[in-house]
């Protein structure tokens, strides 16, 4: 045992919780188990949000109108990650992107795969790739990644206030 003075204390913390998703988020998550990506529209702002919230984050109006969104979309931003993230087993480098699904006004975040990382660009068209139907769960992991559709790129300037 070291005879030196003590300089550090290990004080681990472990707490257990039970999270409740709430009604709106639960419907969104259940959608994935059924192969659907659900959004909601604000009756005042008329913007479509995904993930949907119970209330519009801009005007707080309740958002009851729910719709299925397309599984295709456009990359509005992306980043190439070179540091391994302990919680996920993904080979590095990997690409994380903001994807504006067709019909939505705010992008979702997901992985881009099936294309070398240095060929990915803003405006690229992508499509969700799902796990097999009997393996889907109520969560975004039901989509493993987004891959290129092969369609021509979209001019990103068309998305005037796609969320930053």
């Amino acid at each position, binding site marked *: 045992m070291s005879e030196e*003075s003590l300089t*550090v*204390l290990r004080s681990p913390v472990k707490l257990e919780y039970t*999270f409740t*998703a709430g009604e709106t988020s639960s419907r969104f998550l259940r959608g994935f188990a059924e192969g659907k990506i659900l959004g909601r529209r604000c009756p005042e702002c008329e913007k479509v949000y995904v993930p949907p919230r119970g209330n519009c984050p801009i005007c707080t109006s309740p958002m009851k109108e729910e719709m299925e969104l397309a599984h295709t979309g456009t990359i509005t931003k992306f980043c190439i990650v070179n540091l391994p993230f302990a919680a996920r087993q993904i080979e590095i480098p990997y690409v994380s992107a903001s994807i504006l699904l067709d019909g939505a006004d705010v992008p979702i975040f997901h992985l881009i795969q099936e294309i070398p990382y240095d060929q990915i660009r803003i405006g690229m068209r992508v499509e969700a790739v799902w796990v097999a139907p009997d393996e889907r769960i109520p969560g975004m992991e039901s989509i493993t990644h987004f891959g290129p559709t092969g369609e021509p790129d979209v001019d990103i300037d068309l998305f005037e206030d796609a969320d930053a």
Partner: protein
Amino acid sequence: MSDLSVSTQAEVLSAPHVLEYPYKRSLGPVIGRFFTSLRERRIEGIRGSDGRVIVPPTEYDPVTSETLSEFVEVGQAGVVTTWAWVSQPRPNHPLQQPFAWALVRLDGADTALLHAVDADSESAMRTGMRVRVRWAAAPEGGMRDIECFEPEPSA
């Protein structure tokens, strides 16, 4: 990490979640010295601005905020100034059989230390009783190097 185990019956989804942080805290010279002494089975307090001996030692006087530096060794037994009986220990508690929490003012100290007392029963506890340290067999460098206190046998 979330484990999405889902109740398909309920309308609303819920899932268990464990939050863990492996904190490693710097002790600094005052707390470091206190824990180093505990490891050697000695208890040190620190002299406050008004001369009282503060145990466990603090870096600054609780009233004047003056930086403190004069360490004073105190006894390994003392007096219970208040206590509370835990009949059903929680998993994180220092003892897993019924025990008492106590504030213990060690001999030579002017403030009390919080710890557990391994007493046979609630009726064995009373304010003013004397208790002494039971040292941990394998010190790890922290408050649990005092495993707990135990009632001092009456003379």
